[in-house]
């Protein structure tokens, strides 16, 4: 009997560096990993693909990769501290070893997107897979058209990749729109002065917001900023990732702007265990997020039960 490779066994990877992305009750850190054992050949993966990351002795989590294969032989994972494994991971230090297996999932179908413009809409930690896509697109800049990046967070302090995105905003090559949430009162957003340097979008009718040339900071929910900026849908792929509510509203905004379901892509999250389509829990009807996804077009999702749950 030939012995088959055990797909559950992770390889050892070393934490080369740790970067704090944001603090607060749910801090995010980016871990830069490299293989600890031979062969140390770089991971080959598509933007939007995932890995299973183990803190051995605690557990394993399914994570979107936050970097692109073109970034070199190091892999970056941005992790929010929310549960048991992510807490253990946040307690690790540079030089320590974690387990890694993958890549898993389908990733973004970038080969078919040559020549397209992009609208990337991310909220919170949902920006991680979009960063992977953005890095890939920037590495092949000539293959793609205009790029508009929308990214939202609760506050400027809670915004991940802020330095990187602001530096990109300063470049002329892509348009970046960063937004922070409204301060909320009992009856919804408070119409008080927004944080300095983060002007409000028009609350009742975001489309009427005047966007100054070069303005890249806003106060408002991400879909409202999309409304205010009103990106064009021609030859454009829109990709959104974030909290389910944000995705839902962003898709509505995109549809108002004329995007068709086959132009809109989302990368989904579910509770995962095995990562390889065996354990059963991440199903959307007959499909598994871990193997059939996590990237789905809006067109696919419309046909899948529980896709918007």
């Amino acid at each position: 009997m030939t012995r088959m490779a055990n797909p559950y066994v992770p390889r050892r990877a070393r934490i080369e560096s740790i970067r704090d992305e944001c603090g607060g009750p749910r801090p995010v850190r980016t871990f830069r990993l490299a293989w600890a054992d031979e062969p140390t050949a770089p991971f080959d993966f598509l933007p939007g693909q995932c890995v299973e990351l183990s803190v051995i002795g605690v557990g394993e989590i399914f994570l979107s990769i936050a970097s692109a294969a073109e970034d070199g032989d190091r892999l970056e994972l941005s992790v929010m501290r929310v549960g048991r494994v992510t807490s253990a991971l946040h307690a690790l230090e540079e030089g320590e070893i974690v387990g890694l297996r993958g890549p898993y999932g389908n990733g973004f179908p970038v080969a078919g997107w040559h020549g397209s413009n992009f609208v990337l809409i991310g909220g919170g930690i949902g920006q991680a897979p979009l960063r992977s896509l953005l890095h890939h697109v920037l590495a092949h800049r000539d293959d793609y058209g205009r790029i508009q990046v929308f990214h939202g967070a609760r506050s400027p302090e809670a915004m991940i990749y802020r330095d990187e995105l602001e530096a990109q905003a300063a470049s002329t090559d892509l348009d970046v729109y960063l937004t922070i949430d409204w301060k909320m009162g009992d009856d919804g957003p408070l119409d008080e002065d927004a944080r300095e340097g983060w002007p409000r979008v028009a609350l009742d009718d975001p489309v009427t917001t005047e966007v100054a040339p070069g303005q890249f900071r806003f106060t408002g929910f991400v879909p409202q900023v999309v409304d205010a900026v009103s990106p064009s849908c021609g030859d454009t792929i829109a990709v959104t990732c974030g909290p389910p509510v944000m995705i839902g509203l962003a898709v509505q905004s995109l549809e108002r702007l004329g995007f068709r379901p086959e132009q809109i892509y989302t990368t989904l999250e579910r509770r995962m265990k095995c990562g390889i389509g065996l354990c059963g829990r991440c199903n959307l009807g007959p499909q598994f997020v871990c193997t059939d996804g996590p990237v789905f077009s809006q067109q696919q999702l419309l046909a899948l039960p529980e896709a918007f749950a």
Partner: protein
Amino acid sequence: MKAVIAREDVGRLLAIAARRDELHVPVLDGGGGRFVPLNAEDPVPRDGLMLNGSSARRPPKEVLFAQTAPLFAFELRRGDFSIDELPPEAATKVLFGVRPCDGRGFRVLDSLLLGKCGTDPAYASARQGSVLVGIGCGRPGSDCFCTSVGGDPHGTDGLDVLATDLGDALHLESLTDGGEGWLRAIAAAVDSPLTPANPETDQRCREAHEEARGRVPRHVDLEPLDAVLERAFDDELWDDLAAACIGCGACTFLCPTCRCFDVQDEVRGDRGLRVRVWDSCMFREYTQEAGGHNPRPRRGMRWRNRFYDKFRWGAHDGQPACVGCGRCITHCPSGVDLIDLVERVVESGGAA
């Protein structure tokens, strides 16, 4: 190959089988019955052997897909670890006394665990070379409905050998190469109690099959179900249907085709195991994300998922993933009746 064995010689047959391979047989254990390994030296249980009457309450899936199985062992060091892969199971497993519904259950498990995406190595190695010796159900249990889901009390799908109870004897027929090899080996043993089948036993066999088919007590017409499920997903009926459910995992753990599992690290000191443990889609935690979001917060949604998975999404070779064994009905702690629910779903017409 076909052979016949006198009922009183079944013990001798099992003793021969146990000498050759790792043999598992269904026995009454105070908990309604389950498959246990039978060592060649052990006396064959007489009263407890569950070859007539009802099937073992715990299906044989646990022999090949253990409720708890280690994926690998590890040792923790300061900021590091090492992993020890565990040797795969080498012994050939023979399961004697598998009911035809459970045999079909393995076909569903095969499609899920040796599937297009990945292969579970523990299941694959346990399944490799395994021989499923089925025994037909002369007297189906009180909630059996195998004939409604494409099965039969003497169905052969998934089995390697089928035994038919002729009262004073068992008629054995091999169905696959694996079954043929096993049956020949048993027949070739020095003290083999097998005798060749003859036209008379074949005839009695056919009669037994016919008779048993008429004894399957419960029926449900699945024909209209698929069309209803097509549009019933967002219907409000699911919360009503699940009203009596208490949200335990009895139905899924006793199901011959459920395979969902959890993965956990279990550590003692600096050593531990990463284990695969059965999980149930009926548990709230099953889809509960660390961040607090749960895509299936209500019992009705979890019920709906199981229902669709058995009758629509999990369909395999044109048959539902439910094999009609009736265990989830008979042993539901809150008296929920799957057949009743199928009928209520059909009746609702999916009028969303």
